[in-house]
């Protein structure tokens, strides 16, 4: 596929490849995972899950823009992820509040009733 002169110029000026965005998204995903595994506060765990979802969104958008920009399917997928993460946050916080009402605690270590 021939690269038109204008696109080549834009790419040269920007100096950014898709790998820059993938690297940043990977770092954000890794930090979010570390937070989910290490945090004991339920709400912080939820926030770190949101961080991981955002990193995945960034990957979708960056690959869409650099690999096949004439089809915006990646951005549509990112919109679906955004919808699902909003629903997940609402239900997750409702569960956290119900747990807090019953046990007066938001510590993950307190919810070990199903552990054997």
């Amino acid at each position, binding site marked *: 596929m021939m690269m038109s002169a204008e696109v*080549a110029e834009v*790419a040269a000026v920007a100096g*950014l490849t898709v790998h820059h965005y993938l690297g940043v998204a990977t770092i954000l995903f890794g930090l979010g995972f570390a937070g989910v595994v290490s945090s004991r506060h339920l709400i*912080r765990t939820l*926030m770190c899950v949101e961080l991981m979802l955002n990193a995945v*969104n960034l990957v979708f958008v960056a690959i869409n823009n650099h690999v096949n920009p*004439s089809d915006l399917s990646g951005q549509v997928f990112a919109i679906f992820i955004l919808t699902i993460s909003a629903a997940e946050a609402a239900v997750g916080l409702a569960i956290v509040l119900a747990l807090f009402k019953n046990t007066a605690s938001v510590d993950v270590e307190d919810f070990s009733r199903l552990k054997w």
Partner: protein
Amino acid sequence: MFESTLFWIFATVAIGAALGVVLAPSVLYSALSLIVVFFSIAAFFLLNNADFLATAQVLVYGVGLTIVMLFGIMFTGDTPLKARAGKLGRLLIASISSVALFALIFTSVMGFNIKQFPASAQWIRELHEQGSTLAIGQLLFSKYVLPFEVASILLLGAMIGAIMLSKKTFTSQEPGLTFSIQEGRLKPTLAAEWRKDVGFVDAEVAEEEAPATEELKKECSL
């Protein structure tokens, strides 16, 4: 050059704020740095020609979701967690597993070498002039119309579920145990008392419930 400078600025801000989300001593501070992460990711979307998605990111994540999180923090209180044994082991396992996952994803991502199809200059000009909203809307209502409808059903289910989970459950027949915050600490109180406090109960029901509440009080040894 300009775009590249912007990218490095926002990358630094995003990673620093993400570190803040994970490591901040108070969960309130980590919610506030989460806002910074969301806004810098919106900037990345703008750098990738995704103007509609950047706006949605700011509206849904940067404003809506963090406000919901802050409400959750306000409802549960920002008290520090009790110290527990085994902190070192937990930290060790968490850091080893997350570094391993990061290394795995990073090496595979850096080897990402798919053939890239650059857009035609005309398409880029169209995107810059009209924005991506029209194209996204056309995709959403033609190719992706079924996932779109499924997502709307999912949102309805999530809304009903969240309301059912967080509504009050006790009835006038059985005075349930609920919690109230007194002197910064949680104390169990009785539902009948709570209703009397807010002027909800009528005298008849209160008289009927009076012995029950006395018994419950003894049991709870307030």
